[in-house]
């Protein structure tokens, strides 16, 4: 397992994507799947930084752990910001996605892209730590 600790600010998003992309390349994940995982992690990290830390007046770090087995590549983001389970976010419906841009609601799109893009997603919270877990199949 590879573990990193990244400052929780938006400027660090590119560093997080770079870590994930490198791990995907080492695991020989396809370019398309690599992008989907990097996008998913980016979207959830953005939410952690913006809503979990900054809007709460908090600062902190995000732990990035990457583990590879023969079957899967797993990325775990850990933070001590406000508790938030992305799976509870109401997501855009097919009808919402068909709306003209001028009639669009803004919210939920990032989490929609995140949850749609990975093979599995889980959220856990214990001891005031949020854990967002992303999995991609390698087989």
């Amino acid at each position, binding site marked *: 397992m590879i573990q990193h600790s990244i400052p929780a600010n938006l400027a660090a998003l*590119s560093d997080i994507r770079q870590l994930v992309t490198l791990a995907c390349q080492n695991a020989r994940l396809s370019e398309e799947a690599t992008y989907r995982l990097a996008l998913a992690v980016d979207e959830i990290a953005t939410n952690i930084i913006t809503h979990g830390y900054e809007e709460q007046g908090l600062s902190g770090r995000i732990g990035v752990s990457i583990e590879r087995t023969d079957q899967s590549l797993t990325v775990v983001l850990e933070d001590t910001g406000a508790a938030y389970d992305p799976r509870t976010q109401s997501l855009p419906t097919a009808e919402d996605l068909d*709306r003209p*841009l001028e009639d669009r609601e803004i919210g939920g799109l990032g989490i929609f892209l995140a949850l749609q893009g990975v093979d599995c997603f889980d959220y856990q919270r214990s001891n005031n730590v949020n854990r967002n877990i992303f999995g991609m199949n390698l087989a």
Partner: protein
Amino acid sequence: MAFSANLEMVDSEARITLEGELDAAVADQFRQTVEHAAQEKPQKLVLFMDKLQFMASAGLRVLVFAKQRMGRDVAIYVIGATGPVLNTMQMSGFHQAVYLQESYP
């Protein structure tokens, strides 16, 4: 790769060339460029995305802002979006809301 958004007005068209990685950290830079374009009251917004390597939902939200700021009569053209960036637009239904073209004009 560093992000850039460059605006050029050609007659009544606002042309913005996007390069690099468009995430939440730099989306406001794109939004400000769109705002500058909107002040010119263009009839058409043309976004060149062939050098855009990454686009998060923060970038999509700027497209929503562009449409709402410029009005429904201002058509948005997306030129040269390929691969995952195009796929992200398709997943989120944005491909139906803009004119997608490989090249321009």
